[in-house]
């Protein structure tokens, strides 16, 4: 219960936030990523709003030492910026700028029953599986 309830609540908040922010609408995401006439800057405020909470929040939490229901804060194993990281992020950006979906909004689209999001998520999971197999 100490695992599930916070996870469910965080997921709910996240899903509501993604939908109302406009991130779940690929056309708006593309209008934000597309420079030139008709550029829609409003989605910059999504990351701005999120960071306004997480930057001070994470700093305060780390000073407290440990999370409420776990031994320690998880930290990704690697700390070095390497070519694999930069290339991977660029390939992700390529797909994001092509369809206007990143993983969270695409999953929200699945929940809304959008066929396009369903295809995107299936291909995304296949791509992730193939990559895990190939780089193991």
């Amino acid at each position: 219960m100490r695992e599930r309830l916070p996870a469910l609540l965080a997921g709910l908040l996240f899903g509501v936030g993604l939908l109302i922010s406009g991130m779940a609408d690929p056309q708006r995401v593309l209008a934000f990523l597309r420079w030139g006439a008709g550029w829609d800057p409003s989605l910059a405020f999504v990351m701005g709003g999120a960071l306004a909470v997480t930057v001070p929040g994470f700093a305060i939490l780390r000073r407290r030492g440990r999370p409420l229901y776990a031994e320690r804060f998880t930290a990704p194993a690697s700390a070095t910026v390497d070519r694999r990281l930069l290339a991977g992020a660029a390939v992700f950006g390529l797909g994001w700028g092509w369809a206007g979906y990143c993983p969270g909004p695409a999953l929200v689209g699945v929940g809304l029953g959008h066929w396009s999001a369903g295809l995107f998520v299936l291909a995304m999971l296949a791509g992730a599986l193939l990559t895990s197999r190939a780089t193991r």
Partner: protein
Amino acid sequence: MHTEWIISAAGGILIGSAALLLYATSGRIAGISGISFGLLTGASDRGWRWWFLGGLLLGGWLAAALSTLEAAAPPFSLDTAARMLGAGLLVGIGTRLGNGCTSGHGVCGLARLSARSVAATISFMAAGMLTATILAKLAGA
């Protein structure tokens, strides 16, 4: 125009609060790609991942049902289908190689002051903007 900014910022604040809640309770990073792929690769801690993703789908659905903010799905076309499959594949490969997406690197990693996340965020923002801008130019927009 201004109301759009305010609604987007409010959505962002909710996203940030969700990430903070998960980090404060379980110490986990709210990275959607990592949470999803953990279910595929047989991570030992699958329970909370299902609950989080279930909440994500339910939250999006509820917000759409209670507001007028949902955008309609595009009409079916082979063109759009091919784009979704191709782009989805790239996003899956890229987020695996790069260990994260917009949420894990962009929202949580930047707040953790992780150099890897700063580099990844610059890389995917630049690639995303270049791709969207060039494709629009090619389409003659």
